[in-house]
């Protein structure tokens, strides 16, 4: 049984909620219990947004300070605001073209630039998660995330586009 607390941070409209739903879908396919929380309403209008995903035997979706196993950041500006939620020894994976003094280079990925280069500007979240799924700390494999994308697609066209974005992200991993 997987046990993992993930915090996903970004801006409204970036697909933070979609990404947390994708990970939950992967958890469902793996037969894991989970509970997640997403921001709605006013916060969705371009403001700072977080989603919390707790996989394992939990009752509340909320993640306390210094307790997240993984922090996934879709907008680099949101890293500083959320890093204090990560537990000692936890992992931060950040979509950023710039460097951070307290993060190793291999934890950064310029997902926005890559997505834009491939004409997938609206699928930054998927490009990023294709890459993140190859990282050791991530709770599910790339293949499990692929299955989750298929389960969640509302049309074959969206499925194809989303799988492509995920694959582009995966290829960024050496």
């Amino acid at each position, binding site marked *: 049984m997987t046990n993992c607390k993930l915090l996903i941070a970004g801006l409204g409209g970036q697909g933070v909620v979609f990404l947390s739903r994708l990970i939950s879908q992967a958890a469902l396919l793996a037969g894991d219990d989970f509970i997640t929380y*997403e921001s*709605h*309403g006013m916060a969705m209008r371009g*403001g700072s947004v977080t989603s919390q995903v707790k996989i394992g035997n939990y009752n509340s*979706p909320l993640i306390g300070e210094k307790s997240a196993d993984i922090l996934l950041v879709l907008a680099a500006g949101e890293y500083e605001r959320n890093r*204090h939620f990560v537990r000692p020894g936890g992992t931060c994976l950040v979509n950023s073209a710039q460097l951070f003094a307290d993060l190793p280079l291999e934890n950064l990925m310029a997902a926005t630039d890559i997505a834009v280069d491939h004409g997938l*500007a609206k699928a930054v979240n998927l490009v990023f998660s294709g890459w993140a799924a190859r990282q050791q700390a991530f709770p599910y494999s790339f293949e499990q995330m692929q299955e989750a994308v298929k389960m969640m697609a509302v049309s074959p066209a969206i499925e194809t586009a989303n799988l492509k974005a995920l694959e582009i992200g995966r290829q960024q991993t050496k």
Partner: protein
Amino acid sequence: MQQVMLGNEAMARGLLEKGCTFTYAYPGTPSSEILPAFIQQGSDHGVEIHGHWSVNEKIALESAFTAAMTGMRSAAVMKQVGLNVAADAFLSIAYLGVSGGLVVISADDPGPNSSQTEQDSRMFAMLAKVAVFDPATPKEASIFAGRALDLSEEIGLPVMLRPTATLCHARQNISLNTITQEQRKPEFIRQPQRWAATPKHRFMLHQQLNQKLLDLAADPRFDFATEETCQTPPSPYGIIASGCAWALTADLLSSLPNEESRQFILYKVDLPYPLHKKAGQTLLARHERLLVVEESMPVIEYQLGDHKNICGRIDGTIPDAGALNPEIILAALYRLSEKRSIPTNKDNVDAPPGKRPSLCPGCPHRSSFYVLKKALPKGIYAGDIGCYTLGINLNALDSCLCMGASISQAGSFYQTFARCGESIPPIAAIIGDSTFYHSGIPALVNARWEGSRFVLFLLDNSTTAMTGNQPTPAAGLRADGSQGPALELETVLKGCGIEKITVVDPYRQSELLDTLKTAWEYAQDPDGGIAAVIARRGCLMIPSERKLLQALQITITDDCTGCGYCMKAFECPALMIKAKDPENRVTIDQVTCVGCGQCVDICPQGAIKIV
């Protein structure tokens, strides 16, 4: 079978599994997804149900109550401030009771994240003398929705289900039960002494209600201090919690090292009002000290009575504003066990503030506010509840009280200046279409009657945008997708006696500017009156509206001086400062830009151009 469900969907599921046939709601974060889920899941299972977006919460509750008068099972769904709107019906219904089960779902928003207040609907239930369940997880909310229906029917009283935002918007894997067609048929038994009770009968009904509440407070099903939960060795410290506050506390205790967590015994309250009387007394006797953890007001704590050995919100152990989080509860545990050294975490103090919410790129309200300020400079802009509350970012909103208040306030601003012989500043009431139908209409009838003069600026984006684009009566589309009769804003305005009504596309800024100026002139004219300006353009979050938009390619030329006017006065998320530009010149974020072209004419240097 397991399925991923949002807390709101889980509650809808619980209602359907227990034969709820009628659900009425008005959208409001965090409750908005319950009604659509009720209709969708009912339709997926082929059961005959009715779900409707009522025009406001009072009407929703009155409708659901009436269905329950006929013996059918029903639900009224709203957010916590919506319960304020429904209060008149809510307090009366507790006395009258129901024949079929009636659940009132009132979703709270501690924080607040998307509301005017942090009020606790359980406290409202206590005022109304309505029993209330407080679910902890989506799984439990699904079960409690059904329990609430069953209990309501059993005791013949409405029952409240009170989720908080953390639960409404949590997703969890849930095992589902079947949904079957409810077989019962409506039957109205005439009982005028009950359904139309006069004060004399109301007194009798009140006495009956009190007896039922006493019975519930002694009902073993709601005993939260049963032997079963107390097999662990005695500990000096007991924690009583309900709902999401219980879930947080339970997770926190399980994350602590054993030698720390075993000092505490956690008790879970399912029904915070009326609180099981004996259970409270048992725990006060069993433990040296008790901590009560609940959101957002001390409902359980007040009912426990003896406050000498209890800590919680009343003695300040838990702050009396803001949402709970693990850090607050951890600090409370330290206080409870009288450890002086509360661990502090300074890291978050340095965390920069988040990006504030802003109107979406392409939002027609942006032009409406930008032009309003130009048309009525030094005006008073009375605002209202909706996306357009964000007009405050554009410095074009002076008030935001509650649903529909923009019109009452504009009227009263006028009267206040006019009656005191002062010169009257330009006054505008800014209100969206859905809010206007919700509670703007009586305010408008009143304002005209009183002789108030202002510009009624109706921001008509043909939807309830803030809460996820629910339909409004204007187009007549209903919650279940069926088409009802349309009721245009113009028709309502004419019916309210408004004689000057102008419709304009807010993207046409110069036309809007002239219209607003003319409207204020009319409002000042001795033969004039309230002038309505309808800024009509669909919300781009509606896919069909988005398709209609002919996207333009926008660019910023070298004429940009980096003055920052566009970012401040227009605040479109697609306008951003160029990276590493010493003069802070602006560029267009092509990913965010929808190509609406609203920004083209605003640059003082003329640097924003269509390619």
